[in-house]
């Protein structure tokens, strides 16, 4: 099952076989289509809106990528997003200092949940999907305890600044995404970053070559949680209010983004950039469908098809590339 991705040989790692390239091309094509339909699509403000809409999903998907690279699943993303959202909405802190404090709180909440996941999965040896399912339900409940119905409001400073554009061109939320991408670029080259891929590819081999598998797993869950926290912060900036179920609607989209970004669910292959652009593509697809007058009912239909087609496309290209290489 699904061995085409899992056993892809490292020699077939050309530019074209890369899931990232596929999703970038898809995004550009969709944007061209979008610009044909919407007159204002090429303006900075339209692009800024698009970026703002995509950022919460993109950062959440970036976090989920850590765990999926390990070959695990992390469902707690839905709970963390909701929890951070209601905490920020019930405890607004104004001003730049307050915003900084809020980010720290948001990331800490996420990292704490991630640490629980990590300890149970890495050191307890429990199945990740089971543990994170329980943690998702727990955190969702906690979110309901904090705020039992949609309401509250996020501090104005956060909701204004982070949805605005700097110098009228650069969307502020985009900078947060860039910061995440930059940190990933550094992390990817650290020992832990390399270990993450090694553990995802082959746990036994990684352990035998001296990698601390448990520690690597735990770190991955904590980093994933921290990013969910950041995503929750960005989500709150967009919605400006609290909703104890804010994260639930994003759960499936997070995994869709990761799949679209070319990260293999078997672990050890893919990356964070793909997931982020995958998220942006899904949100862009929604816009394209809206502006083409498709009934909102059928948006799921297209999202599902795009997911499947993206995976098939990566599979086919991988297959062709491998055959060419073997024949050469």
């Amino acid at each position: 099952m699904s061995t085409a991705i899992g056993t892809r040989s490292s020699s077939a790692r050309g530019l074209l076989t890369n899931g990232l390239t596929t999703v970038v091309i898809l995004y550009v094509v969709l944007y061209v289509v979008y610009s044909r339909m919407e007159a204002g699509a090429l303006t900075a403000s339209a692009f800024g809106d698009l970026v703002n809409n995509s950022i919460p999903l993109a950062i959440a998907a970036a976090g989920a990528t850590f765990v999926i690279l390990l070959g695990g699943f992390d469902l707690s993303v839905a709970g963390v997003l909701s929890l951070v959202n209601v905490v920020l909405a019930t405890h607004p802190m104004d001003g730049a200092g307050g915003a900084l404090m809020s980010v720290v709180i948001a990331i800490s909440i996420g990292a704490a949940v991630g640490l629980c996941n990590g300890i149970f999965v890495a050191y307890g040896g429990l199945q990740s999907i089971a543990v994170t399912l329980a943690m998702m339900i727990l955190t969702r409940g906690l979110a309901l305890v904090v705020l039992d119905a949609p309401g509250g409001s996020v501090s104005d400073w956060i909701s204004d600044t982070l949805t605005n554009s700097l110098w009228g061109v650069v969307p502020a939320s985009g900078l947060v995404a860039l910061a995440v991408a930059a940190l990933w670029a550094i992390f990817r080259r650290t020992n832990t970053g390399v270990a993450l891929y090694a553990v995802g590819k082959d746990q036994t081999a990684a352990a035998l070559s001296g990698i601390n598998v448990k520690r690597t797993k735990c770190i991955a869950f904590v980093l994933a949680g921290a990013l969910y926290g950041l995503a929750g912060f960005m989500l709150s900036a967009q919605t400006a209010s609290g909703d104890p179920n804010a994260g639930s609607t994003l759960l499936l989209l997070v995994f869709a983004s990761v799949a679209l970004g070319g990260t293999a669910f078997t672990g050890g292959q893919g990356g964070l950039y793909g997931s982020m652009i995958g998220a942006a593509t899904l949100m862009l697809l929604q816009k394209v469908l809206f502006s083409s007058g498709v009934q909102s009912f059928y948006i799921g239909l297209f999202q599902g098809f795009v997911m499947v087609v993206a995976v098939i496309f990566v599979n086919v290209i991988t297959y062709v590339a491998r055959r060419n290489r073997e024949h050469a």
Partner: protein
Amino acid sequence: MLNLRDESATAGTGFVRGEDKRGAVRLQRETVSAIGVYLVCILALFLSKFINPEFGSFHQLQTILTLASFLIVVSYGQGLTVLIGGLDLSIPSVITVGGVLAAAWVSTLSPAGFWWQIPAVLIVCSLIGVVNGLGVTLLRIPPFIMTLASGIIVYSICLGATGGTPSGAAPNSLSTLMAGRIGGVPIVNVFVVIFCAIAIFMQSRTSFGQRLYAMGSNATAAKIAGMRINAITVCTYALSSALAGFAGMMLVGYSNGATLRMGDSYLLPSIAAVVIGGSSILGGRGTFVGTIGGAILLTIFDMVITSLGLAQGWRTMISGGLILAAILLQHEGALDWIRSVGRRRN
């Protein structure tokens, strides 16, 4: 009962455990899991008496079994896909399809509904599973993605086709199944017991069931041994969808109508029931007996927590904590501890 074989030789290497053990040892591990789940069930029932004396009565047990019946049916399909190393995330959408079609197609009065239209709905539902299976085998799409995508697609077709409000009411045959009684016992309880017996027999005693275990343990080896992996996979997903569709029909019979979100609350519990029942999410290990226990346990938890009269948030938190506790109890370390206690006694 606890006179089990020593396996401590592999204790040092966490990642090799449970991979290369077949036959007797595997069954024993699963037996311990299943016994554990049922013990927790009994414990939960016993403790719930302190909250509400009504709990634990014969009538209460009937209600629990009735409420658990949906989850038991759905979890069987989920369990089979998990057994072969897959996962079925399309279940909530297929439940909705089954429910919506049953309410719309199956005639309320004529007996034709029972003989023709209900099987027709089941066939439509199983076709979704066939598509899932073909995507997983021929197109090599990871099961997680394939079933997630097909679930979204099917749901949005449902939403579009019904315009948001499904019409129709429960056909007679379904309301009889869910509300009727035979000799003082609800028909649905009898049905679930028969269903479980057939399901357990199929999973543990037939060659089809054994093939699923073989595939889940090692798909490559199963293929070399001459199994038709693709056909088996397609059958498994089709079965899972048909069962989800049937659960949808049962829900229609129970609540006398279909809603679009009727399946939503069964996806995560179906996975939870399978995992709590001692199955490995990686496939190749688990019994339906354990899964039934998991489904019943989740239902008891739900009822007890509801009866506590707490706010929604606290209820949700408690149920999350209980699931976590159940998973911890299922942990191999805990099982080994139980075994070592058993050994010492002998």
